[in-house]
């Protein structure tokens, strides 16, 4: 095609630009992204303060506030990815997108990029406000914070890949899965309690969930001062497996949707 240049990165950048335009088109939405994590932090901050004198092990090192913030990273990462995809469905735009030379994996990467930006917009203000409000700085964790954050972002994306696969195949009727899925894994993730609290069968299930290792690792670091690299690697390994499975599921669902003409029908 004369006069045109085409590359995957160019298309991913175009998608990113589109999501950026969407984001900046509504200031209330930007504020809302930061609002929920901040409210969570404030609420759990006071809970932590209340229990500090009677249960120091529960609040040592600001663990309660830190795990709340880190858990919200997963939730934001997942919601941001899936909502950006839902925007395409709500606006019945999938047909236009995939008539363009856009490949499904480029869409996935574009969604992941904007998810990361939205997650940072949500989490950074809450994490910064925790310092003056409750004297807890998650940034003092240094590299482990980045490792925890990165793993939970990956888990969020993996969940989103499964949800978007279902959405593209079965339509907006499956929309509520977006909100349900993070809470399905929450009890097994051992966010607020150690793994040993769970009954044996739940511990078995929990061992297949990457977030369990992240929160166990975080408790070890904040309460015992031990950096458990092995837990992080287990989380990363599981994330790689789930991301691979999620990508495969999405690509399969996309192929089925395209064969059945569902891309043009997707929407409200």
């Amino acid at each position: 095609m004369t006069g045109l240049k085409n590359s995957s990165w160019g298309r991913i950048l175009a998608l990113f630009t589109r999501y950026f335009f969407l984001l900046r088109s509504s200031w209330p939405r930007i504020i809302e992204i930061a609002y929920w994590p901040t409210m969570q932090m404030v609420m759990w901050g006071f809970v932590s303060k209340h229990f500090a004198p009677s249960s120091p092990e529960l609040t040592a090192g600001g663990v309660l506030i830190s795990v709340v913030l880190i858990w919200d990273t997963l939730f934001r990462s997942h919601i941001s990815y899936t909502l950006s995809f839902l925007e395409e469905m709500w606006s019945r735009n999938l047909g236009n997108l995939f008539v363009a030379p856009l490949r499904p994996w480029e869409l996935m990467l574009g969604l992941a990029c904007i998810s990361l930006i939205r997650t940072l917009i949500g989490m950074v203000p809450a994490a910064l406000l925790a310092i003056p409000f409750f004297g807890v700085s998650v940034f003092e964790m240094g590299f482990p914070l980045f490792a925890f954050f990165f793993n939970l972002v990956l888990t969020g994306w993996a969940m989103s890949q499964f949800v978007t696969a279902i959405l593209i195949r079965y339509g907006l009727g499956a929309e509520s899965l977006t909100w349900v899925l993070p809470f399905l894994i929450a009890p097994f993730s051992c966010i607020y309690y150690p793994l040993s609290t769970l009954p044996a069968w739940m511990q078995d299930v929990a061992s297949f969930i990457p977030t369990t290792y992240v929160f166990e690792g975080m408790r070890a670091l904040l309460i015992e001062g031990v950096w458990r690299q092995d837990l992080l690697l287990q989380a990363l390994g599981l994330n790689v497996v789930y991301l691979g499975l999620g990508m495969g599921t999405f690509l399969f669902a996309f192929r089925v949707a395209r064969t059945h003409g569902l891309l043009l029908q997707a929407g409200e």
Partner: protein
Amino acid sequence: MNFSSPYVDLPQRLTVRENLLVYAKLYGVINPGNRVAEVAESFRIENLLNQRLRRLSSGQKTRVSLAKSLINKPEFLLLDEPTASLDPDTTSWIRELLRQYRDKEGATILFASHDMREVELLCDKALLMKKGKLVEEGTPTQLLEKYNRDNLEDVFLQVNRRKEE
């Protein structure tokens, strides 16, 4: 390749310019800003560029969708009822614009329409379909001669009723 259909929307919260710019970039158009200005001029939507899509009338949205469909100067263009919701005057110049584009760029246009007059005016070859199956094909002149009719609408009715008998 590109595509336009009244049944597939562009994002409503973006402005016309933002929508066109994103698609120009998706198609890898060089100087996307210039190309957006060109198609905006062609489809007479320059004054709408900074408006959000949701504020436009359905006719204006159709013109934006058509502008998007030419953003990459496609060699193959899929149009689904491209003049739906346009007034007769706009329909007339849009048809002319599409014809000029086809001739200038040597593009192939696959065009789905229920408006047989439009098919007669624009198409080199017409395919009549019924329940997803091809039931007749030929140039508009061939079809008119074959069925001894004055216009394609009558041809369509005859073909459609014949098959139902």
